[in-house]
């Protein structure tokens, strides 16, 4: 076995362990100097990215990778699963790819953005810890392990939101987020305890094979409701979205982009619960969650767009735009769940159910790239002008040419204009949702048009317009920030020009993995 095979076999653990090792080494290496530490962190994330793409190339060809911690022998011992298990299928590696792209962009961006701040050792340590938590959340196959990594991510992200402690609003937003997030996580733990008490299993595959239509009772319903309520609260779906604009708007720009990744990891948790853990009972009429997801997605979209119209703070406006985009993902996947859970609909409607889910899942990576690019642009504008309110900005485009071009690319991508990637995923969602109910698709298209209008207003008032004396000699953003924005923009244009390639390579295995829960449970009979 050559070195690549060994790396491929050990990669689920190494993907989580490498940022953790980097996080613990950062305070010691930080004493050597500023540049040494930054290069060390970029090397750590580059190694992790190599491992993620190596694992992705194998998982996309159809194998599910399992990894047992701390033992090489079998983990099923007289019908009990011992030892913690990592299970990587198409959807998990898809979210891991998103996480590693966002983390790399954030670390390259922070090289120049955080240059004059104090306490940078703690900043980079917390950033790597948050990345570890996100990787752990999406790769694990054990329910209590998911809870532990969820708490690691939320504690690290809360400490990072409050990083600018001299601003009172940032600390308030972090406290708000922390209280709500902790209560949500405690309810997740309560429902995990319910499921453990009833079925005596914590492994997701083992639990899924034990929750059957015969044994479904009130405790399963209660656990499902508690889990979904807490995880959709962490994902920012209305009506539990109150923490999202404050947290995204007050954090430093490089943290907002990783927060988008953390929010989407919680959304991955929702999908894993709905489709895989309760996979055997999807057809029961009491578990009719599809319509709830569709309605909540629409409400989120409308709240995001309507509140974004009246904002005058740059980053808070983009945060409301991110909220609206979350609604699209929920709408797409909810349509798929509605069709799949109804056993009386004809087989022909299954095809547009799969199309809706492809659109929803494709929109996850598109939204991460688009909204991430917009947050980085807002951070660059704040770095150059130290102003964050739209009333005081104006005429920046003369001095900051590259930033303006990046904002244009982000604007077109978010509103779904070809040839950017937002158009491909939104078209898939519109087409399939129209066949479920025409009114839903019309509301979605209207929300997209309003988002375009709002973004054009922002572009005009911040970048175009007459020159203001105070901004006479602001300079272009530093090179590392431009490189980070350039990576995201080039990925947006690439995804937009070849959407077919991306859907067949990345999105199709994810949808196939999520609609066939039996393949996730299959390793139990074969043993490990």
């Amino acid at each position, binding site marked *: 076995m050559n070195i690549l095979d060994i790396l491929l076999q*050990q990669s689920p*653990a*190494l993907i989580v*362990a490498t940022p*953790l*090792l980097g996080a*613990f*080494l950062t*305070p*010691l290496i930080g004493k050597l100097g500023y540049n040494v530490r930054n290069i060390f962190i970029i090397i750590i994330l580059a190694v992790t990215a190599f491992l993620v793409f190596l694992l992705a190339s194998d998982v996309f060809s159809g194998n599910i990778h399992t*990894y*047992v*911690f*701390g*033992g*090489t022998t079998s983990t099923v011992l007289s019908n009990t699963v011992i030892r913690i298990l990592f299970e990587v299928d198409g959807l998990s590696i898809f979210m891991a790819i998103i996480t590693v792209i966002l983390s790399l962009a954030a670390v390259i961006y922070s090289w120049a953005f955080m240059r004059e701040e104090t306490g940078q050792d703690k900043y980079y340590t917390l950033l790597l810890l948050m990345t570890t938590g996100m990787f752990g959340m999406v790769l694990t196959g054990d329910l209590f392990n998911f809870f532990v990594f969820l708490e690691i991510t939320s504690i690290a992200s809360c400490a990072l939101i409050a990083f600018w402690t001299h601003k009172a609003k940032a600390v308030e937003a972090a406290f708000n987020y922390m209280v709500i997030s902790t209560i949500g996580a405690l309810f997740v733990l309560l429902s995990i305890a319910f499921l453990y008490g009833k079925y005596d299993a914590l492994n997701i595959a083992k639990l899924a094979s034990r929750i059957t239509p015969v044994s479904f009772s009130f405790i399963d319903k209660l656990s499902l409701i508690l889990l979904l309520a807490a995880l959709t609260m962490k994902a920012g779906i209305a009506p539990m979205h109150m923490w999202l604009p404050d947290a995204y708007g007050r954090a430093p720009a490089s943290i907002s982009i990783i927060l988008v990744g953390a929010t989407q990891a919680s959304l991955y948790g929702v999908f894993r619960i709905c489709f895989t853990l309760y996979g055997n009972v999807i057809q029961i009429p009491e578990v009719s969650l599809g319509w709830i997801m569709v309605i909540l997605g629409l409400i989120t979209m409308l709240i995001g767009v309507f509140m974004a119209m009246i904002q005058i703070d740059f980053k808070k406006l983009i945060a409301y735009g991110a909220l609206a985009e979350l609604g699209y993902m929920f709408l797409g996947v909810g349509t798929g769940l509605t069709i799949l859970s109804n056993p009386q609909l004809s087989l022909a409607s299954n095809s547009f159910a799969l199309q809706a889910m492809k659109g929803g899942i494709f929109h996850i990576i598109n939204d991460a790239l688009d909204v991430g690019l917009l947050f980085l642009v807002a951070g660059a504008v704040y770095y150059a002008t130290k102003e964050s309110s739209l009333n005081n900005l104006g005429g920046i485009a003369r001095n900051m040419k590259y930033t303006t071009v990046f904002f244009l690319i982000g604007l077109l991508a978010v509103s779904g204009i070809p040839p950017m990637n937002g158009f491909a995923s939104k078209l898939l969602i519109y087409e399939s949702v129209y066949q479920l109910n025409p009114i839903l698709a019309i509301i979605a298209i209207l929300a997209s048009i309003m988002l375009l209008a709002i973004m054009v207003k922002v572009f005009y008032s911040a970048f175009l317009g007459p020159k203001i004396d105070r901004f006479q000699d602001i300079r272009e953003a530093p090179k590392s920030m431009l490189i980070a924005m350039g990576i995201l923009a080039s990925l947006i244009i690439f995804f937009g020009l070849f959407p077919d390639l991306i859907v067949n390579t990345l999105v199709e295995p994810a949808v196939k993995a999520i609609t066939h829960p039996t393949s996730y449970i299959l390793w139990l009979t074969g043993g490990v």
Partner: protein
Amino acid sequence: MMSKIVKTIAGISFPFITIYGLYVIAHGHLTPGGGFQGGAIVASGLILLLVAYGTDWIIEKIKESHLSILESLGALGFIGVAFLGLIFGGMFFTNFIAGTSMLFGGIPTSTAANINTGGTLPLMNFAVGLKVIAGLFAIVLVMAYAISKEEGE
């Protein structure tokens, strides 16, 4: 800064608390306890000293940067043992000491307590215990320092 009686009693009871906490850490694989529990006991002994002698006196003796280095050493010990399990055993976190003739490698044969068993568990207990002592004491020390600076203004 408390009265003389409190300072004397705190100084007398601090070694006993530390010994008890280290006993709980070291016997984590035999009796209830382990890294976090023993570390919390030792940290509460240190906080007893902090309350009795006052923040300024303790800040002169123990700097916050030393605590940060101790914490990093504890964390690196934990993840280092896990990576050694990967190199010597085949999977991450493997117990590669159990069954061999190294320091903690023995197999328990009866229900009598034998401390020479456990494999990598006592090593990880020591690392986690060191990290918890340094971490918990640093949290309370920084909070006390911040409040004493505010009242001083």
